[in-house]
């Protein structure tokens, strides 16, 4: 079914994004945002109406960025061209975000200046397509994000929204997620996790939706811990009923804590939270 970029539930998710940014952007004058805005640019327009960035409508109907530093990714050439026409003063890449990060790894790591891509304040991965079909896996993408952000030792907000696509998911993707869960359950450091997991599910099978949500959240939290970030705030949400596509939305704000304060305990606690605190957004 076609993806609908807006719905009452999605609006609530967007308001959560605003709330996260507002809570954690005190003192930031030029908010840096990396996003997948699609042609409608709903998130950017909302951020502007909430005063987080400033977009000004121009003579030609395009919006120009007056305050904030915006970088967009769009792999569809048609939508990319629409974005170039609709948005000025921003950088719009005609490329999948993971591919761009991978190809420009060295440049991003060596960059030095406030106008560079990283460190960012917000990264909004609002996928409307099947995550499993990306040329760069979600695991690698998340790893790259934390590598870059960790290199610059700066906290940020990460929002990840994706559709549940059980029927179309690539086998390679599902196998990856299974291996993540299996590794976690068989990790000798994770007895506490294993115990809680078994308590919670009491032998019942995870639904595919729960499984994917759990595994992707685990990837994020694992990379956060590995790169010395702690979670200041998070929400896990699902929505979409009846004819609407089932969606999952994970929201985090990370703080860079350095070598000493990170570690396994934070990681396991946060992952456990995942399986208990998924909010169904009505």
């Amino acid at each position, binding site marked *: 079914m076609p993806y609908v970029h807006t719905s009452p539930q999605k609006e609530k998710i967007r308001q959560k994004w605003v709330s996260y940014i507002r809570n954690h952007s005190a003192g930031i004058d030029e908010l840096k945002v990396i996003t997948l805005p699609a042609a409608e640019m709903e998130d950017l327009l909302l951020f502007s109406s909430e005063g987080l960035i400033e977009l*000004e409508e*121009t*003579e*030609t109907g*395009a*919006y*120009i960025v*007056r305050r904030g530093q915006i970088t967009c990714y769009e792999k569809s*050439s*048609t939508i990319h*061209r629409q974005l*170039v*026409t609709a*948005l*000025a*003063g*921003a*950088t*719009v890449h*005609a490329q999948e975000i993971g591919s761009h990060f991978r190809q420009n790894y060295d440049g991003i790591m060596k960059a030095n200046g406030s*106008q*560079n891509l990283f460190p960012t304040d917000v990264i909004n991965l609002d996928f409307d397509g099947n995550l499993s079909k990306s040329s760069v896996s979600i695991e690698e993408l998340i790893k790259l994000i934390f590598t870059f952000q960790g290199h610059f030792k700066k906290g940020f907000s990460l929002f990840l929204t994706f559709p549940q696509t059980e029927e179309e998911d690539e086998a390679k993707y599902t196998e990856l997620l299974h291996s993540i869960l299996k590794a976690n359950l068989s990790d000798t450091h994770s007895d506490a996790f294993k115990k809680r997991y078994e308590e919670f599910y009491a032998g019942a099978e995870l639904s595919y939706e729960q499984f994917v949500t759990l595994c992707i959240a685990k990837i994020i939290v694992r990379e956060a811990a590995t790169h010395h970030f702690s979670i200041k705030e998070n929400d896990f949400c699902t929505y979409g009923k009846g004819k609407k596509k089932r969606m999952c939305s994970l929201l985090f704000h990370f703080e860079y804590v350095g070598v000493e304060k990170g570690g396994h305990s934070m990681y396991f606690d946060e992952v456990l939270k995942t399986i208990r605190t998924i909010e169904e957004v009505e």
Partner: protein
Amino acid sequence: MKKTTTRKPKTGNNITLEIGKEQTGNIKVATQIINDLSSGIYSSPASCVKELVNNSYDANAKLVTIRIKPVQDVITILDDGDGMNAIDFDNNFAWISKSNKRNSSEFSRTGRPLIGKIGIGFIAVNEICDRLEVSSSKRGEAVKFVATIDFKKFQKESHKATEEGIIKAGYSLINEEEARDAHYTLITLVGIKDEVKNILDNRQYVETLKKGRAKSTFKNMKELLLYSEDKALKAFGEEDAYLQFVFNLASYIPVEYIDGGPVEGSRDRIISDIVKMHKGFDFKVDLDGVYLKKPIFFPRNEKAKVKTFEESIKTSSGQLKFKGYFYIQDHLLTPRELNGVSLRIRNIPIAIRYGYDTSFLGYPTYTDQIFKNWISGEVYVSAGLEDAMNIDRQSFRETHPDYIALQNFIHRFLREQVFSKTAMPIYESGRKAREQLKHRDTRKSLKAVLDAKKVSFEEVSSASGETLKPLSLKQSKGNVTVSIDKSYFKKIKKKDWDYLKNIFLIFELAHKASRGDADKLQEVFYEKIKTWVEEK
């Protein structure tokens, strides 16, 4: 049955439309001369970008979108024109000076006079960036190509010379599937050179605006021009580098005039034709949210005049056809870059900056100098003159019969129609007003100096044997009558007399007030001089 084989077109670099296969090629220039030109003539970012915009125009684009993000090292130019496939790309641009654009027709599919001639413009961007990415899909084809052109490798003095020409850049290209109804060209300039970034970085300009106005920037070209006027700038050249770029670029592309331009309120048929012609091209350029328009706008001015012309002249090289106008006002014309005449071939000006020849095709400098500073003109050439154009598209061969014919016409028109019949009457009517104003100011300052309600002048002649002073004063009930000896002021230049007269008056006044006291005389004299200077 005999099998018909369709020969696949072969390009210089053997490029094909095969999907998914990476192909490589070189962009060559045919001769050393072209190589030198392509390196030297595009001296500003505007002159480079305008070539790409004019290519879009030739490709029947209705909208060109330019996005500048130089701080992040990228300029994007997207058009909705007919596009090209990989073979077209290689044929048109991989061998500079062998452009196919004019081979088949002088006009585009939609009837626009084609601008590009030898393809040199496309390679001009190598002056401002290290790499060019081109993606294009041709109208009616379900394929696009994505090419990356690397200039940096070849930006050394000893360009690689081959038997076929000098290699200006190398490129790699890949064909991909695309929607059949898609047609566009997307050009991304990457690795913008630092000096270019400084020009295109508008942050300083935006900061300046934020300090002075409620709005954060101009909304359209008209506002931009009026903003320049508000700042009382006399020239585009005094503006911020970014705004100079905007004006320069807008001067060289076939976009419409600013609303109301070029002459506000003009109902002249020729000017209306020119304006309508540009609207008819249906060609818009969006530069970061502003539609670029020709920065030629002379606001309504009751004292200004417009003289238009339309001519067809037979020359030894054929028929020269042109039309245009001169706008004449009663004071210094600003911005100064528009003070001149813009010769347009295929609607594009042939000149160095902002499109105007400030010498008026070499009009003698010793004559009509005052009036020349008041006028601006445009000439649209519809036939002829093109062969007179030098390869740099910025100047003409002045010995070409078409150029000479046009020059003779323009000079005669200026002399007979513009300067004597139009500018001189404007000057004369202006002069009376200026003199009255000067007179009024002089009287006002004199009233203050003489401490009088009214000052009147009379000329007197000395009777034989009697020697009068240059002037004398009679004061009565707050009114002062100044009697001036005619014989004095006739010997003195008018300009000098205007000053001397006042000094004599002040002396007479001081003398009267001093009652023979020399010190008092000196004191009052200098006091009155000071009052006079302050009033002036």
